[in-house]
């Protein structure tokens, strides 16, 4: 039994073909990353109007789930917010699947704080000091921050469960593969992180930029102390100036062919990329979208 508003609802989107009765419809199985699920669902839904003969069945569960499914050969397309490791690729090859990577977009990993939290900017070193096992930062006063409604001064760390792609990316990019400090609140879903931070004045969390809600703030992040402080946005993720932005990937087994290829081409085309942009993610390539 698994939880979380976003992942438990592993939604099956079945496109409704116009003349479904005549030919058997092909079903593309698409599974994985929690970060990508909203956009994957939107793609699947929109694609039904492009090709009524193809249904794309989307489910979430996290990058690990998608990659496991790719290794076991139970999906056509696996979504992931991290690259597959060498070991995973070997495991997939051992099962006769040859994972091929497709970059479909970028996601800026935003740092979230409560709306009342006045902190203006954070460096990666400070984030490592907050989250890392050897990090010395435990109180907001150590960062010269006073938050109304947070009298205890304690930094409440909101993190992700230890096999999420977001968790792994943050550990690699911010903590330089050091372990997390124990005692973080490990939420099971990108959305839950933002919701908990919104309710908790003392909290800090990290999650995809697309999950921002008005009750939270996203301070700008500096790569190293001298650098410019960059706010997470579509532009800063695309031009690479935002220091913690990661690629969003889709894996197929072998080079895509037939309907899977047609679908991926459409995803990477203007329509697919504009859907991504509309939902707050950064496209893989600069895209001009007409409103």
């Amino acid at each position: 039994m698994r939880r979380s508003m976003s992942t438990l609802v592993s939604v099956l989107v079945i496109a409704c073909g116009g003349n479904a009765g005549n030919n058997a419809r092909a079903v593309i199985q698409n599974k994985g990353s929690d970060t990508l699920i909203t956009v994957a669902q939107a793609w699947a839904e929109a694609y039904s109007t492009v090709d009524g003969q193809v249904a794309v069945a989307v489910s979430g569960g996290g990058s690990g789930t998608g990659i496991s499914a790719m290794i076991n050969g139970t999906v056509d397309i696996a979504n992931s917010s991290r690259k597959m490791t060498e070991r995973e690729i070997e495991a997939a090859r051992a099962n006769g699947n040859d994972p091929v990577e497709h970059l479909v977009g970028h996601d800026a990993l935003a740092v979230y704080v409560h709306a009342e939290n006045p902190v203006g900017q954070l460096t990666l070193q400070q984030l490592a000091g907050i989250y890392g096992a050897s990090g010395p930062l435990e109180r907001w006063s150590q960062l010269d921050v006073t938050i109304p409604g947070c009298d205890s001064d304690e930094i409440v760390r909101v993190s992700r469960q230890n096999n999420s792609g977001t968790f792994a990316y943050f550990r690699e990019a911010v903590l330089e593969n050091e372990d997390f400090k124990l005692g973080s609140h490990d939420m099971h879903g990108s959305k839950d992180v933002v919701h908990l931070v919104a309710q908790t004045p003392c909290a800090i969390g990290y999650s995809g930029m697309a999950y921002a809600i008005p009750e939270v703030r996203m301070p700008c992040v500096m790569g190293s102390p001298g650098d410019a402080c960059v706010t997470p946005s579509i532009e800063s993720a695309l031009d690479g100036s935002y220091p913690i932005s990661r690629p969003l990937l889709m894996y197929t087994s072998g080079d895509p062919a037939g309907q899977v290829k047609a679908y991926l081409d459409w995803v990477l085309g203007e329509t697919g990329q504009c859907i991504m942009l509309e939902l707050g993610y950064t496209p893989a390539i600069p895209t001009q979208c007409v409103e």
Partner: protein
Amino acid sequence: MNQALDRSRDFDHRGRAWYLDRAVTVFVFIGGTSAILFIGGIFVFIAREGLGFVFSEFDAGEFFGSIAWRPTSVLDATYGALALIVGTASITGLAMVVSIPFSLAAAIFIGEFARGRVRELLKVLVELLAAIPSVVWGFIGFSIMNSLIIDIFEVPIGLNVLNAGVILGLMAAPIMTTIAEDALKAVPDGYREAAEALGATRWQVIRKVVIPAAKNGLVAAVLLGVGRGFGETMVVLMASGHSINIPDSVFDSVRALTATIAAELGETAVGSDHFRALFTLGILLFLVTFAINLTADTIMRGIRRKGQRANP
């Protein structure tokens, strides 16, 4: 002659009724024994996955003595389950502090005081409380109780032992109430009548006669409530904070065994150390709940036998 032949043919005749009878017999037999089959199957399955870990990488000192549960670490994966065990125990403990007084008082009121409509209404309401899905309780904990606890107690975060314990207590209370009420009902009326004949007041009857006579049943009710708390997953995952921590107070966040399995198993590669370590947690949970239920059952059986002796 003819008649005798007919009768012998009838005797041998395997008609519809005979087959139906056999089919139902087999069906009932399978139904009756399937519980044994399932429990055996589940145990074999968990043991097969978990024992491999127990006999190879397992380090009892680390598992029971360290709080560092870092199964996916890049540097050094560690499997310390101490914080998870303490987390489960602390939530269950608080849940019992909340639910035992409530449910025993409710059982005494429903069983001994309430009459007629009130009694029926209360019983229905208690059953209704038991029917609320745990994810709904968890959601209340995550989105309502969190802010409430932060505001009222001025603590940094409201997802903690208090939150999960109170909700779990409310969830365990209906089950405990129902079983405790059955235990009170099992006390023969002759006891009450005898005590009343001796001039005891209603309160004295309950305190000195009914409760001591139903003692075993009440203990069993509490134990089953503990078992329920121990095994509950959704609520502890959502309301406890899911944070590896040894709590100093009820305002600290913790993480439970069940919640850890629920959160991590789905995304873990089948057969990996992490996967098998999670099954080891499963074995631990299974053994503890099995022991609790067995104890409760033994106690209940004791009462039934005693009840039969008193009421031949």
